């Protein structure tokens, strides 16, 4: 089974702060995703990537940047964090060559912006 590891598990920052959330997957999946999860909205896609150096815009990208440095590593950057970005963030990966539609999720990072 795919392994997706997120860090940190919890993060608290202040408004205007700079935050980086990290994600690593160890199964050589091509696709990686960042979602945020909020009560009443379910999971919403922020950014995703097809491979190293590639970045695609998701459904709620405003205020977020992302970078895919290697096939394994995908980062989500909040350069000027705002309280509206307080949320539970999930990273996921998938491999179109095996089971295109199945996403494998990490355990999440809970971010609080004060």
């Amino acid at each position, binding site marked *: 089974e795919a392994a997706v590891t997120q860090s940190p598990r919890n993060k608290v920052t202040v408004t205007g702060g700079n935050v980086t959330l990290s994600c690593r997957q160890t199964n050589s999946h091509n696709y990686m995703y960042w979602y945020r999860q909020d009560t009443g909205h379910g*999971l919403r896609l922020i950014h995703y990537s097809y491979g190293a150096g590639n970045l695609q815009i998701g459904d709620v990208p405003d205020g977020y940047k992302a970078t895919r440095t290697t096939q394994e590593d995908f980062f989500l950057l909040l350069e000027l964090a705002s309280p509206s970005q307080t949320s539970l963030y999930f990273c996921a990966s998938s491999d179109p060559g095996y089971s295109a539609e199945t996403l494998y999720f990490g355990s999440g990072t809970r971010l609080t912006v004060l």
Partner: protein
Amino acid sequence: SQWGEENLQALSIQEGEDVTMNCSYKTYTTVVQWYRQKSGKGPAQLILIRSNEREKRSGRLRATLDTSSQSSSLSITGTLATDTAVYFCATDASAGNKLTFGIGTRVLVRP
């Protein structure tokens, strides 16, 4: 049922009972997936049903898909306390290998 601006639906049942949750989607999809999210964990896929299938079974799980009404259901028979979780449906209605998730159904199975 889940989707759109609806509030998260919550169900409370006794262990051993069966439960069915519903999902409706807005545009054509090639697959409907059902995911389960337990407390403190990320979602994990339970079952995937394709647009050319009407029913799919996996152990105690049964998923149905009605493309004419753009709806799907997930049933769990003989629930266990360990089935307590939030259940999401997801479709690939968007382009680019993106999944769109419903807002979920919270199921509490009382021992």
